């Protein structure tokens, strides 16, 4: 349905806007505070798919999560998965699956799309040599490609394999849940992408 058509890539293309896309309750609260306190125009994206996902939030009510700082959710030395929004949870599931095959994935939740924390991403890719960038947005024209391009240009000599991309099929998100499941990328797609890089 409409609510799973991810449009953050269009927003990110407009210069001057700050684009935030948290994947956890803690980050949603902390980043919303940061967004309100910022004097810049901010588009704060919330995925409807994540509304039902529960998570721990600090007792201290005034914890602010910094804008423009990615978060390494899971450490690993064999492959880097960069993701945001619902794709972060898929990435973590994929990482668990790959761990069973002896491949340790590092999962980075970007949290802020603009400005982009490439330093965290590049540090990870230089370590692992392999990278998958994942989001739920339709892959064509997705902001995923911005990160892929930057990784290739800035860490070329550290890449042991091409950079893989994950996104939804090139179309409008279907209404029936069964079709939407096929349309959207999932943990299995991310795991397969990692496998293809080894």
């Amino acid at each position: 349905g409409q609510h799973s058509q991810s449009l953050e890539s269009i927003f990110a293309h407009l210069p001057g806007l700050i684009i935030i896309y948290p994947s956890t309750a803690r980050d949603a609260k902390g980043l919303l505070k940061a967004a309100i306190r910022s004097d810049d125009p901010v588009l704060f994206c919330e995925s409807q798919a994540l509304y039902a996902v529960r998570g721990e939030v600090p007792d201290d009510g005034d914890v602010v999560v910094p804008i423009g700082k990615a978060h390494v959710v899971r450490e690993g030395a064999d492959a880097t998965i960069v993701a945001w929004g619902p794709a972060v949870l898929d990435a973590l599931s994929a990482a668990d699956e790959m761990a069973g095959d002896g491949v340790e994935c590092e999962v980075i939740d970007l949290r802020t799309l603009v400005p982009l924390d490439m330093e965290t991403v590049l540090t990870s890719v230089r370590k692992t040599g392999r990278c998958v960038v994942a989001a739920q947005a339709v892959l064509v024209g997705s902001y995923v490609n911005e990160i892929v391009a930057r990784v290739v240009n800035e860490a070329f000599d550290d890449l042991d394999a091409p950079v893989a991309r994950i996104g939804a099929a090139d179309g409008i998100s279907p209404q029936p849940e069964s079709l939407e499941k096929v349309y959207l990328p999932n943990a299995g797609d991310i795991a397969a992408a990692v496998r293809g890089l080894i």
Partner: protein
Amino acid sequence: MPRPIRMPQPGQMTEECTVLEWFKQVGDVVSKGDVLFEIETDKSNMEVEAFDEGTLLRIDAAVGSTVPVDTVVAWIGQPGEAIPDQAAAAPASAAIVSPSAGTAQTARSPSLSPSQIGAYPSHAGAYSTGRRLAISPRASRVAAELGVDPPSVTGSGPGGRIVERDIRAATKADAATRTEGGEPLSRIRQVIARRLTESATTIPHYTVTVAIDMTGLVDLRRDLKSQGSPITVTDFIHAATVQALVELPLVNSRTDGQTLWRREQVHLGVAVSIPDGLLVPVIRDAQTLSVAGLHDRIATLVEAARSGSLGPDELSGSTFTVSNMGMYGVEQFSAIINPDESGILAVSSIRPEPAVIGDGIAIRQMMRATLSADHRLVDGELGARFLNAIRSRLEDAGTFRTQV
């Protein structure tokens, strides 16, 4: 500090405008918003307002002048202030800086400088197989860092791509086979190594052996010695070889696989062992020397070889070589042909052996001689004929009895 007033750029494509009229004169006080001058653009006329306050100090673009956009047309400031050198008033950039630009980060990625691109040697396409080497950038970098030669590595990545783990596995394997504490080879050894590797890898070798009955010559040698002659069995072997080369000059010639260089003059190389290796002094025009002559020449050359005083002329130009290991008690060996030659004769020890003579067995002084030959020029039949030419001369002691 006087500030410049610049010709504006009214349209995206406008390059220059003409000043039509000045509404303020030098010395007039100017407030923000006052109309300063009027310009004619490519599309229409336009009034230019003042954004600065102060006194108009100087007009640089007079009425009627056409100036490029962004050029300084006038100066505004406090009365009496000195106007800076025109050269210092560099054109301002066209961008309008918004107050919050510092916090909203522009998404500009640092571009890779040309010296950074391709900093690591690209192995793709550099090899004679004609196929690009499939290797990941990371593996290329690691190979360069660790001194591993990528084409020697097998790739385990998708499509046989060489990836980092393959390079690291190769260095582990190298380290395992390498022995500790290597030292450089001496110059002469390196030369030997180079020349023999060249022969071994470019000349198609084959070998053929004959057993020669040297009994007659051993007896002759004994007789000569008792007469005070220094001539040895080796001299007879050299003489027989030279004569066989005269008889079968193709063995004395050489080829590169495409061209034949016929050689009639025999310049015999004699392998001499020296402490650090091997030298091959050359007896030039050996076919002109008698057995005694050969003996004297070799004696001189061997002496010079052992004292390290051989000149370059004496060490090059051989057409065929004899290598004698008879003094070492060896039964048989094959030698490696020297570069630019087509054969080498390996002479082993003379040893008493039982042999069939007529219907009986006798003890004879037997010696094996092995010819290694260049199969591009010397076929098996020619090689065998050559050896037999030597053998027949050596086994018929009468040959040499008349030559000494």
